């Protein structure tokens, strides 16, 4: 299965994901990652990150902190309400 690359931009002030671009080509994804980081270099309110997996559903599980409303998986009582 091919890896799909997702370039995510999270706004720390708005507290949500403001952009999500999808790439099947890793080199294109990496180049766009660098371009976006350069454009926003020094901006401490944005988190730009390049992640990859077999699907968006998997990314929401493995790197889910940038997605709103994704419920916790195991629902440990020690993390209830967190």
């Amino acid at each position, binding site marked *: 299965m091919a*890896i799909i690359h997702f370039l995510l931009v999270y706004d720390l002030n708005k507290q949500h994901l403001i952009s999500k671009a999808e790439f099947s080509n890793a080199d294109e994804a990496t180049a766009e990652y660098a371009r976006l*980081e350069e454009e926003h270099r020094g901006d401490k309110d944005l988190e730009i990150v390049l992640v990859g997996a077999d699907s968006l559903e998997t990314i929401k599980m493995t790197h889910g902190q940038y997605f709103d409303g994704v419920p916790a998986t195991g629902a440990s009582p020690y993390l209830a309400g*967190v």
Partner: protein
Amino acid sequence: MAVVSERGVVVPPSPPFSKGQINRAGDRLREWLLDDDAWQNATEQETMDTFGVLVPFRASFQQPLNKVVMGLRSFVKSEMKALPPDGKLPVGQRLKREPTIAEKLLRFPGMELARMQDIGGCRAIPTGGAPEVQGILRRIKKHWGPTIKGGKDYTEEPAPTGYRAIHVVVQRDDRLIEIQLRTPGQHEWARAVERTELRTRFALKNGEGPPELLRYFELAAEGIALQDASEAADSTFTEEFGEIWEQVRSYFEKS
């Protein structure tokens, strides 16, 4: 290709970069993170020698990372008892963010950028928990043994934050790639910490933040480790956990 600017000729660095070139770029990043003025006042050549090295250097991890992930996926597939019918596997990857590369260099003054172990990183969270994590680890050792260059078992020896997982660093195409193996409970904990970091903007993973919040996550990690091992928490633990939760619950109330 040289670029002529008002300050003279700027020569972009061209790969392959020497270790010295890479480490000097790292040293400047560290310096610029400490002092905004230093960055603003940097010459075009210095800027080029920093980001013109860092950007392609980081990009050179993408293909080795993809290869490691393909292998890791096959190990996960072999070990997981309950495979989802859609064929999706709980394996994800990321290329480290520029600011976190700089912050890490600042936290570890002796660290060389050329030797950083987690510029390309991936993780697997097998649904079967610790036994499947151990099975994947055995496969990594069996198939990739000679390429293993480091790692740490944070399950045996948790980080001061409470973080638990097994990390293995492998070398692929002359690049170091970090593999994280987590049980669903360990991952849920790490996600909760990251969610809270985004919300509060405390760098909790680096041990920065209100002591009660750090203590809460440390205890929660311990509680989850007990759950993972099917052990019961004793009354002292339960009592302390209850007390610390009362101190931190306001951080989690939805605004």
